[in-house]
């Protein structure tokens, strides 16, 4: 029973972080139909922005805000400078589907190189704002700690804000309309180009939170070659696919399924499955529900 609760809580925490990364990918996918592999690099860069901020103010929560703003600006810049040019010049033919993949993979490496140039290749540390010592139940000590609880709270808070933004505001309506039908959005007077850039910025900010939380969920260390960030990208991608790529709610559910099932596989089957478990889950999801958790066959959802 104790072990079960422990695994559940660990799974929810990592699921929450995967959900954010998956949302970042889905926000870009919805606005430009591009799978943005550079997202891992952007999250990494944003986390370095947070690290830099911490050096000056020593407050994790303010640093998180600065990382979000930095991530948003970086993403908007990438969309306006690179993606617009790229999509304009490769709008049809076989190249249209391959070019964005190659471009964003290239961008990922460029960002990593720039980070190394600025901050060096060695590990740096971001101090967690709360204790990473687990709560106790009787004589047992959980892995679940105040920091992990705060991570879940931050994710829930962010998801609530995003959900209000998308469902209750005109900006959200513009984002959804532009994603589902750019042409009708334009006929309704929406400046789809601006909305697209905003979608990327929102994605950049969301990815920044994923990055910052990932680091303090672990041992606090950060490096340009971080394997955790590569895994974060893969997990986010898998969660997004499980969620159906177009649905925001589905994406969050996808992230949770991935986080929980990975935690349970590692606990109860074998922790040597660490790298393989996510792929097995992806495979299962694609076989059982290729249209995504909430997707209807051949349909799309808000």
């Amino acid at each position, binding site marked *: 029973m104790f072990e079960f609760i422990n695994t559940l809580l660990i799974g929810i925490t990592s699921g929450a972080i995967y959900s954010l990364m998956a949302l970042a990918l889905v926000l870009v996918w919805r606005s430009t139909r591009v799978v943005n592999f550079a997202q891992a690099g952007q999250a990494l860069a944003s986390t370095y922005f947070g690290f830099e901020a911490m050096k000056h103010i020593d407050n994790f929560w303010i640093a998180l805000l600065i990382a979000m703003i930095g991530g948003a600006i970086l993403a908007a810049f990438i969309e306006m400078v690179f993606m617009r040019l790229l999509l304009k010049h490769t709008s049809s033919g076989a190249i249209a589907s391959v070019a964005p993949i190659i471009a964003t993979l290239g961008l990922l490496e460029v960002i990593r190189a720039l980070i190394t140039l600025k901050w060096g290749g060695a590990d740096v540390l971001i101090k967690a704002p709360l204790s990473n010592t687990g709560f106790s139940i009787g004589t047992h000590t959980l892995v679940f700690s105040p920091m992990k609880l705060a991570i879940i709270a931050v994710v829930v808070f962010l998801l609530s804000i995003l959900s209000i933004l998308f469902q209750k505001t005109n900006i959200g309506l513009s984002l*959804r*309309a532009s994603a589902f039908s750019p042409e009708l959005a334009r006929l309704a007077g929406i400046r789809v180009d601006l909305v697209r850039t905003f979608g990327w910025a929102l994605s950049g900010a969301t990815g920044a939170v994923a990055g910052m939380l990932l680091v303090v969920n672990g041992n606090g260390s950060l490096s340009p070659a971080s394997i955790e960030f590569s895994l974060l990208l893969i997990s986010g991608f898998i969660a997004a696919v499980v969620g159906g790529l177009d649905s925001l709610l589905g994406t969050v559910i996808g992230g949770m399924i991935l986080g929980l099932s990975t935690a349970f596989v590692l606990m109860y089957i074998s922790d040597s499955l660490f790298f393989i478990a996510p792929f097995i889950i992806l495979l299962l999801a694609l076989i059982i529900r290729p249209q995504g958790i909430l997707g209807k066959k051949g349909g799309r959802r808000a």
Partner: protein
Amino acid sequence: MTLIVNNLNVHHGAIAAISDVTFTVPQGELTAVIGSNGAGKSTLLRALSGLKGATSGNATWKEHNLLKGSAEIHVRHGISHVSEGMSVIPELTVEENLDLGAIWRRNKSEAQSSKREVFALFPRLEERRKQSTATLSGGERQMLAIGRALMSKPELLLLDEPSLGLAPLLVKQIFEAISNISKQFGLSVVLVEQNAMSALQIAHSGVVLNLGRVVAAGKAQELISDPAVRAAYLGY
């Protein structure tokens, strides 16, 4: 306040879809543009609403050059386009589709009163306002598409085959609604249709397109009684 189209040419790549098209729509009048499939009707409307660039010619509305600037600008000058084939977003609710039409309007209380007008015209939409658009019937979707266009407070309405895919009874209702809307709001309307007879019956004037060219034009009544037009487009 007249729509003036003069020697308009529009190409899809090398294909001339609209060639030297000239016509005018006086304020508050309804002009039917009829022609068979592939005649260039949709291309004409898309050029006027700014979705598609023109090759040459002129098109003006209230001294506003329609061939410059894009769709998101034109709608702010009172031009609403209901594009071909259920111009709604199925992933949104009925009310969200309507709100979309007014999203650029600064004055939200005016937008609210537009919504009340649309609901008065199409009570069915009010009953279903919270429902997903995907659950609507074809006729209801077409009403919603027209409602969305009205939410932009248009003075010029461009309608692309509103009767497409509807049952005969609904076709009659939609044409009546369009005629009423035009009169009630004093709108100028360009109504594109393959359903030539029904369109001409509610129109002041008509333009017959064939392979991108105007082959006949005039008062609607004259076109209806023109033997050549009858033979080719009205089926008797």
